[in-house]
């Protein structure tokens, strides 16, 4: 069978976004084309944004079995979340 274009994962930072976010995937022969394709497929060309593409095979993911150990410690650190703290109403917005 003929060779298929590699699969790329697309990450986009929008005009007001702080981080690049995974938006989906697509096929492209190389990185340059992957960026153009990402622009056409996933942004319908909004301005002022930034696109990252990574060939899917280069992404390392945490193994499903790790789900517990990787994420549980942070779940117990509830003090990292603002809702952990009761602030009196009189103090105003914080």
């Amino acid at each position, binding site marked *: 069978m003929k060779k298929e*274009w590699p699969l790329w994962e697309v990450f986009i930072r929008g005009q007001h976004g702080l981080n690049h976010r995974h938006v989906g995937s*697509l*096929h*492209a*022969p190389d990185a*340059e*084309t992957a960026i*153009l*394709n990402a*622009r*056409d*497929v996933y942004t*319908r*060309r909004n*301005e002022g944004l930034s696109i990252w593409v990574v060939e899917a095979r280069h992404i390392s993911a945490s193994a499903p079995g790790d789900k517990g150990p990787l994420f549980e410690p942070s779940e117990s650190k509830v003090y990292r979340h603002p809702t952990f703290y009761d602030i009196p109403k009189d103090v105003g917005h914080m």
Partner: protein
Amino acid sequence: MAQVDQKALLEFVLRQGDNTLVLGHRVSEWCGHAPVLEEDIALANTALDLIGQTQMWLGLAAEIEGEGHSADDMAYLRDAWDFRNLLLVELPNGDFGRTILRQFLFDAFSAIYLPLLTKSADPRVAEIAAKATKEVAYHLERSAQTVVGLGDGSEESHARMQEALDYLWPYVGEMFASDSVDQAMAEAGIGPDPAGLRAEYDALIGRVLSEATLRIPEDSFAHKGGRNGYMHTEHLGHLLTQMQWLQRAYPGCEW
């Protein structure tokens, strides 16, 4: 502004609007039939930009004409001899290679020409050009990259791209075949005489086509007759037959 010849101005604006109208139509024919989904979507974006530019240019043309017509009337109710587009853009799509090469040859011209129009003495022209310039810069990036990829790709893709260039080349010269309309526009500060842009154009496409390992034909013969409406190809009539059919068959309806 009062001293600008309104007939020449109308002619000039129609040239812009008919180019984008006819090319946008041609590119839209690909929807659902492109070589790969990513290309299908990208071609549709190009066509959508061109249709949007058409609405602005033909809207302005209708305003200059001053007979109460709309942009749609200009697109759907004029006959072939009224059209002022380049022959290049009305040619049938051919294979994907010819379509993308034609797009590149047109984009390269627009990318040089439109930024100059943003300085037009007519603010309406400048405004349309400003919006279109951004879109065209992207079109050029994409079409140039694809032309390089296919020209310098496989043996077959190279051969097809060279064939496309040989076929399209005689239609390039018309972009620079300026006439009294262009001179009137240059004098009034509306837009530059395209004849003066040839060297810059040749340099731009020369860079890309050489990277694409494609050979520019030596014969400099140029077909003409589109931008002055003197003699279009047979293809335009068929395009209009399709595009204008509903408006012609059911006149005066709202859609």
